[in-house]
């Protein structure tokens, strides 16, 4: 390490130190403020999206955030974030918690902590039928659209290294580009793909969801590193929701028959904060 790198390291360490001590105990800070700021996407139905009637952000993630705010006895403030901005915003303390369709994986564990897994989904590909693609490997060399800064792009690259990936700021833009024919496929979490597919209406006949999963994505709430007190409250709240049956109700409210997704069974329980990969 030369002198320049040493100075840089010292500056960064100082920044980390100052940043770290300013939030000695986040839980105490939240209670003192009487407010918890939760980062959501607001563009990803049904996890968090804008209800066209009330113009408010609603969804599965939002209801979980509400339960946590209620448990803490504080006011809930939602902050809309771009997919790529989620982890940095949490690390820099501009939000207290992430409830933003966030995948829990080993790489991210180096950066932030996660709550108990709140949802398990796979990532899938929606393709245009006129491309004659029926399986994931056929995407080789083809233009595939998705969102910047999530796990979608790395997962697709792992599954089909030669696919030409084009990314956008929101999943909505990538989906519009697919509809306009600017690519042959669009990658997203299965539940979001199902919601998008439902929005196509009569045009559904021109599209196909490939049956194969690109990956299995455990979703969880994101918590800043080194905040065991806050993590405990969040996990306790989730355990209580599971025990009382409220978690299952929330699942069917957003993913069940009344939703666009129409899941008949709930294939998981909120119980663990461990992931395999």
């Amino acid at each position, binding site marked *: 390490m030369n002198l320049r790198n040493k100075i840089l390291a010292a500056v960064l360490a100082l920044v980390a130190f100052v940043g770290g001590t300013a939030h000695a105990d986040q839980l105490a800070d939240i209670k003192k403020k009487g407010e918890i700021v939760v980062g959501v996407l607001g563009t990803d139905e049904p996890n968090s999206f804008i209800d066209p009637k009330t113009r408010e952000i609603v969804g599965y993630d939002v209801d979980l955030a509400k339960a946590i705010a209620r448990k803490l006895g504080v006011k809930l403030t939602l902050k809309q974030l771009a997919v790529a901005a989620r982890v940095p915003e949490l690390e820099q303390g501009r939000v207290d918690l992430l409830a933003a369709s966030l995948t829990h994986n080993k790489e991210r564990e180096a950066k932030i902590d996660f709550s108990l897994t709140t949802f398990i989904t796979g990532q899938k590909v929606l393709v245009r039928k006129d491309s004659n693609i029926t399986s994931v490997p056929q995407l080789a060399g083809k233009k595939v659209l998705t969102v910047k*800064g999530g796990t979608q792009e790395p997962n697709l690259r792992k599954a089909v290294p030669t696919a030409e990936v084009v990314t*956008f700021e929101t999943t909505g833009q990538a989906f519009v580009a697919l509809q306009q024919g600017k690519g042959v496929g669009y990658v997203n979490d299965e539940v979001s793909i199902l919601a998008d597919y439902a929005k196509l209406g009569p045009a559904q006949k021109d599209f196909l969801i490939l049956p194969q999963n690109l990956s299995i994505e455990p979703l969880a709430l994101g918590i800043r590193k080194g905040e065991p007190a806050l993590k405990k409250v969040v996990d306790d709240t989730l355990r209580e929701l599971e025990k009382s049956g409220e978690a299952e109700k929330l699942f069917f409210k957003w993913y069940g028959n009344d939703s666009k997704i129409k899941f008949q069974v709930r294939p998981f329980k909120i119980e663990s904060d461990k992931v395999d990969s």
Partner: protein
Amino acid sequence: MTPIFDLNLLLTGTYHDWLLSGLITSLSLTGISLALALHLAIIIALVRLSPVKLLQWSGFAFVEAIRNVPLLAHMLFWYFGAPELLPTALREWLYARNVEATSAIIALTLYTAAYMSEDVRSGIRSIPGQQFEAARALGFSFVASMRLVVLPQALRVTIPPLISQTLNLWKDTSIATVIGVAELMYQAAKVESASFRSFEAFAFASACYLGMSLLITGAAAWYQGRFPVRAA
């Protein structure tokens, strides 16, 4: 443990290749848009100075319509909006190619040309009107008087502000990331989401923007020293 600033990540390997290809794309966007915008800017400036009222008015409308809308909106329009108005066959032909870069070049060209045309127009207006009148009196047409007498002098005055617009164009290419053009900011974000090395990725991008911008500024300084503005 990985170092706080991993210089190797920038010097070799996949991430290096991604960032370098982003830099090349950004430079190409700048080069192509600059070449097109310069020509378009001169045409618009001449249209605005032409004796025909309708032409003057349409030149004015073009410049104001473009300058008063943010570049981000231009990008989204030329990518998501405009191509949808094309006939089906042409649209499919375009979509099978690099529609992202094409849309970005159109947006950057129009946006830059609107600003440059104002600089060219001021340059032309700085040349005394008698020169143009003398050329006309000697029997040159409007276009020939402009091309042979006024423009050679006007462009000399105009080069410094045009270099400054080129500097803006260079930085404006970063907006193309929103329509999926794999330029420098796009590749930096890609490296960030694949490796979580945000600091290295954006340090590289910033160094490239700063370095190239300084070169352009240097070119402007050199030009002004070498070809000072002459009293007309």
